[in-house]
């Protein structure tokens, strides 16, 4: 459904991606793991159009995304939960969710999705009148995910959802990702926390220095010593 073919990208003059290829299948969780600086986030930025790849193709339902603007990419059904949450700090929780549904017009559908999001994250319902800046880190992460879901995406790109969260919250986040998948959504997950990510992923890719070096199902990769090597430099 989403396919990256040999994508290269430069950032500040340095080649950060030097050939990333991967494919995401519908209804599955695909994880991209790898040590810091491997190019995971950059890959997502390329897909969503914040960064323009210098080479390669990004195919989404047989359409090349590389020349499109972010807003058009979002329109075509891709959403990203950015690293570091990036909620709108001075907007209330429910306004943040509304922003997620910015491109949608069908009020009825939006309402339905909103109650679904509240079901998924009961805490957001409690906090719905609070401004997002006053939420805790975990709650903000929930909000960021909820906001992304409000755009009714076909595929959800998640960038380091567990970063900076307490271990207990990390579990919760992964639980939610799993739930999202169960509603039939496709998820492309970028994680540092390899074990966690692979434990819920159907398929995983390991990035090192801007290259996809390994791929396989979650369990396959989890048992692959190469993964540990890529992380710990053994």
């Amino acid at each position, binding site marked *: 459904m989403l396919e990256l073919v040999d994508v290269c990208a430069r950032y500040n003059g340095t080649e950060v991606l030097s050939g990333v290829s991967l494919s995401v299948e519908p209804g599955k969780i695909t994880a991209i793991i790898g040590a810091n600086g491997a190019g995971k986030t950059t890959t997502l930025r390329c897909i969503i159009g914040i960064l323009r790849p210098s080479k390669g193709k990004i195919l989404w339902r047989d359409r090349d995304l590389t020349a499109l603007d972010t807003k058009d990419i979002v329109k075509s059904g891709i*959403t*990203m939960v950015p690293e570091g949450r*990036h*909620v709108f700090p001075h907007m209330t929780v429910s*306004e943040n969710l509304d922003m997620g549904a*910015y491109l949608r017009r069908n009020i009825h559908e939006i309402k339905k999705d909103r109650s679904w999001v509240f079901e998924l994250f009961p805490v957001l319902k409690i906090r719905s009148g609070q401004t997002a800046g006053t939420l805790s880190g975990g709650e903000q992460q929930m909000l960021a995910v909820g906001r992304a879901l409000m755009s009714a995406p076909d595929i959800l790109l998640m960038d380091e959802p567990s970063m900076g969260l307490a271990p207990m919250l990390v579990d919760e986040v992964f639980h939610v990702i799993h739930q999202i998948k169960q509603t039939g959504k496709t998820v492309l997950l970028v994680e540092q926390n390899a074990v966690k990510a692979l434990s819920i992923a159907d398929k995983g890719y390991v990035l090192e220095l801007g290259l996809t070096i390994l791929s396989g199902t979650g369990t396959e990769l989890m048992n692959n010593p190469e993964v540990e090597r890529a992380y710990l430099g053994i």
Partner: protein
Amino acid sequence: MKGWDILYYLVNGLPIGAIYALVALGYSLIYASAGVLNWSQGDMVMLGAFIGYNLHCLLGLNFILALLITTPAVACIGMLVERIVLRSLRKRSSPPVNVVIGTLGVAIICRNLALAIWGPDAQLFRSPVGSVPVEIGTLRLFPQDIFILILGIALMILLQYFLKYTREGKALRAVAQDRMAASLMGIDVGKSDTLAFAASAAMGAVAGILIAPLFFVTFNMGAGIGLKGFVAAVVGGLGNIPGAIGGGFFLGLIESFASGKISSGYRDAIAFTVLILILWLKPAGLFSKITKETV
């Protein structure tokens, strides 16, 4: 008289404060969305006043109708400024000070175009609400002042409503808070800049029409009020909407007290001194929290 005194200066500072607030909102809105200073904001006030004058006084149009035509017309000019000036500057990733110079160029063009079209004389814009003062105790309130306050505050509420409850308004706020995240929501950030310029110009235009009966209409009226609006916006904390409103009223009140209580000649000097001192204590404006740069 003494007790009334304070109250009097208070009442007197409010209408002009409302005008400053409207202009300051323009600066703040643009700064929030596009992150630049639009130095032609004051001349949008002037254009608003002149177009309103043309429609209301020369063509004899109803005041409300004139207001309703003028506002979108000036908003279009604001949009044009964004499209022509800001976009070109963005494309070349110019330093922010170039935006100041560029919009200053726009201001000079507007001002002198107005001079060429309408001449150098002050033009009379009769108040639509008459000039019979309302007396409360020893206080005398002037209908135009009340009108300014009411319409000004109404406009501020309208703006709040626009920002809070409309789709485009919320998008504008989102862009102001987090440009990247906003684009991830599918918001066209460029369009939002245009909107911010249009809304700012529109508010300037309303301010222009509102003060026209008090100030008369002159081609260079924009310079002074533009500067005051800028000051108000900065003191309130640029990009901060409630801050701009607060800053506007604050400046209006300081001026009222300074000229009545200390010295009318030094009024602006006093206002500026107070404001510089405030900035010294609160470098990001009166109404904003200090955020420290981190590594």
